[in-house]
């Protein structure tokens, strides 16, 4: 700077009144902000001196140059000056830009772009198009990814809901609206509780298994996860009989298990959805059966606490009930977990049963006449189901039983009926064995079984077919049927054996009717008699009955040929001349292996009152006995005919 100093004057920084309004309000100029103040200061910078300085320098240079070379550099002088001016302007602008960049209170007010050249336009377009294309490609990938995941989700849902719908066709599916639904569970449950109980007041407690949650497994398919050993099954057995085959049976019957289910998930790709749904159905059915077994056991427990006919509890433990059914037989009913843990099961059941040497179960059953264990289980479940789970109007008639809990003291409840049935079954097997023994030894007896279709009654008939009378063989063909019926001699004698619970009733023809004997009528000399007996006495009774039937038949035959004979219980007496008697006597011995009935021929001298005195003499002269042996009916008949001819020498037909 040189020379004159220029001074500018500012206004005092005092607020000066701008205006006063009519209402007296004063208006001041607005305060300028800090930025505005700076801007105004900068604007006031006068660059004229710089420009003037530059211009003076240039002039001086020009004067110098012109003094040096006035004519030669004249045409370039203006260009040089222009360049210098441009340089100055540029330096100013650059300073401004630097200030702007430093954010130093100067901003760009406007900017005019220079018009772009064509190649610039095209390259800009190309860049935009490329960027946009890139964007769209990325969008495309995004959409594809989303669609893939949606498809997977749809497929998973389709599998899930398809399986659920198929399950719903057989099971009750319920939905709980879970507010904060986790991703793996939408609140579906399957309700397995059976509320069709007849006596619903008795069993209203649903088991913990009766509501099963439906969950998603790792592949999105529905899965049912049960805790292990949650399914229990009813197990029945006779104490001391079946000790070796329990765990195996259980493991064969119930093979499904939640752990197995989970391990099978890894093989699921090889299994179709159909198979999977079927397996789930099976699993649910097992749980359902387990619930039913639980209910059966609870009902039996409840019955066991009541005093009723046929129920004799000898042991109670958790999930175990032991009952005595008479004649030294004991049965047990227990609830055992129906799947894994075979070792545990066998240990438990070994503990439960008494320490008896394990026998071959099959032969043991046959030997002792025990019914099949599985059939007993089924029977038990069936009678509980029929009586407790069926509507009243549909209830079938269980003769001699009533519904549980309602019966009086002399009527057995369900458990009582079951125990009595089993006791009867065992007892009737023994009766059958005895009857078979008897029948096998006597060749002219036939045994016929009559199924009674009643669980506490059994019935058999022992037939004795006698050979037809020769005399009547021809005449019967001529007479009418009615005559035949009336006059025909019996060709069959029957003895009926009926077992009710543990009482044996024997009913048969053969014993002489005392009244008939007095009247000496040929009709109704053989009557039907009934009596009860024990198992030990049964063979003897049967043999006695049969022997008396044979005697009866022989008596009839003798009467037919016109010979009068006296019939005692087991003895048929013919009168010979001079008071001598010949008797055919039956001897019954159930222990006799060759045959139960043997025959003796006894001849006696007339005077009946004397024979007692002569009893002491074994082979006395007035009594003669001959053992005939075990005779068939034909031989007996011919013997009779011989005796008839012997004593009918002077008599006519």
């Amino acid at each position, binding site marked *: 700077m040189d020379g004159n100093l220029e001074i500018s004057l500012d206004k005092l920084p005092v607020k000066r009144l701008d205006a006063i309004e009519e209402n007296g309000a004063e208006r001041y100029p607005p305060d300028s902000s800090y930025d505005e103040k700076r801007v105004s200061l900068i604007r006031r910078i006068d660059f004229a001196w710089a420009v003037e300085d530059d211009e003076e320098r240039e002039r001086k240079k020009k004067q110098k140059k012109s003094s040096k070379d006035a004519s030669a550099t004249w045409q370039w002088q203006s260009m040089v000056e222009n360049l210098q001016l441009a340089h100055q302007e540029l330096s100013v602008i650059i300073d401004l830009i630097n200030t702007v960049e430093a954010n130093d209170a100067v901003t760009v007010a406007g900017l005019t772009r220079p018009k772009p050249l064509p190649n610039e336009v095209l390259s*800009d*377009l190309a*860049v*935009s*198009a490329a*960027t*946009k294309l890139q*964007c*769209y490609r990325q*969008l495309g990938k*995004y*959409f594809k990814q*989303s669609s893939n995941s*949606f498809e997977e*989700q*749809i497929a998973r*849902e389709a599998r899930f*809901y398809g399986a*659920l*719908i198929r399950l*719903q*066709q*057989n099971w009750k*599916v319920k*939905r709980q609206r879970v507010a904060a639904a986790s991703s793996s569970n*939408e609140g579906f449950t399957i309700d397995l509780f059976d509320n069709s109980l007849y006596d619903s007041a008795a069993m209203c407690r649903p088991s913990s298994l009766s509501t099963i949650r439906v969950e998603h497994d790792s592949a999105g398919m529905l899965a049912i996860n049960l805790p292990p050993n949650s399914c229990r099954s009813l197990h029945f057995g006779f104490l001391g009989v079946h000790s070796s085959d329990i765990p195996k049976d259980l493991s064969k019957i119930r093979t499904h298990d939640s752990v197995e289910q989970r391990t099978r998930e890894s093989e699921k790709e090889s299994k179709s959805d159909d198979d999977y749904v079927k397996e789930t159905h099976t699993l649910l059915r097992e749980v359902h059966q387990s619930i039913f077994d639980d209910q059966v056991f609870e009902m039996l427990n409840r019955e066991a606490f009541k005093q009723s006919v046929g129920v004799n509890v000898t042991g109670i433990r958790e999930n175990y009930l032991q009952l005595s059914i008479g004649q030294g037989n004991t049965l047990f009913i227990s609830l055992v977990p129906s799947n894994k843990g075979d070792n545990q099961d066998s240990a438990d059941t070994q503990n439960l049963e008494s320490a008896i040497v394990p026998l071959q179960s099959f032969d043991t059953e046959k030997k002792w006449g025990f019914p099949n264990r599985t059939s007993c289980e089924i029977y038990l479940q069936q009678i509980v189901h029929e009586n407790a789970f069926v509507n009243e109007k549909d209830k079938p008639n269980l003769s001699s039983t009533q519904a549980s809990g309602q019966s009086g003291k002399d009527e057995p409840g369900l458990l009582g009926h079951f125990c009595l049935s089993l006791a009867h079954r065992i007892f009737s097997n023994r009766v059958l*064995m005895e009857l*078979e*023994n008897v*029948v*096998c*030894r006597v*060749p002219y*007896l*036939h*045994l*016929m*079984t009559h*199924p009674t*279709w009643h669980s506490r009654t059994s019935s058999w008939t022992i037939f004795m077919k006698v050979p037809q009378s020769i005399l009547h063989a021809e005449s019967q063909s001529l007479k009418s049927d009615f005559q035949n019926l009336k006059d025909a001699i019996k060709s069959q004698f029957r003895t009926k054996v009926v077992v009710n619970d543990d009482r044996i009733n024997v009913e048969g023809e053969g014993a002489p009717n005392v009244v008939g004997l007095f009247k000496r009528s040929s009709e109704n000399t053989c009557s039907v008699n009934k009596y009860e007996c024990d198992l030990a006495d049964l063979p003897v009774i049967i043999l006695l009955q049969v022997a008396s039937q044979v005697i009866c038949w022989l008596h009839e035959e003798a009467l037919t040929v016109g010979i009068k004979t006296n019939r005692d219980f087991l003895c048929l007496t013919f009168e010979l001349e001079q008071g001598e008697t010949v008797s055919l006597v039956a001897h019954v011995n159930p222990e006799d*292996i060759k045959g139960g009935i043997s025959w003796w021929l006894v001849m006696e001298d007339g005077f009946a009152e004397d024979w007692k005195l002569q009893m002491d003499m074994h082979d006395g002269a007035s009594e003669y006995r001959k053992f005939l042996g075990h005779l068939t009916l034909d031989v007996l008949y011919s013997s009779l005919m011989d005796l008839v001819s012997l004593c009918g020498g002077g008599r006519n037909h």
Partner: protein
Amino acid sequence: MNKGTGVGTGPTAAAAAAATQKQKSMMQRVETDIANIVDNFTQLVNVARVNEPPVRNSQETFMMEMRAARMVQAADSLLKLVSELKQTAIFSGFASLNDHVEQRTNEFNQQAEKTDRMLARIGEEAAASLKELECHYYSSAQRTADTE
């Protein structure tokens, strides 16, 4: 949908009205979602025009991403609607469910009866066979005594 026929045939008028209302709301949701998808897609396509300087590119990119996300969201919402409908079909198709249950009940009853008849027949046949066999056995000459 079953619900379409629910008006007037439902158990109560209130339930029928609720069903209609629910149907309306579902249709509304469907409309909204589909309109959403269509609208966003239109905007996406519109933005495809390339005539602006690069400064707007990032803005457009962001907008495109946003619209794409909205489309996907609308599609997801539609899918959820579909699974809700499936659930409703499972649990509210009472007519078909009842029919099916009755049908199954009848099937099972018939099966039970058939099994009972079969058991009775088996029993009768077994009794007849037993009678015949006993007759033959005790008439035969080869009866052996039971060895004990």
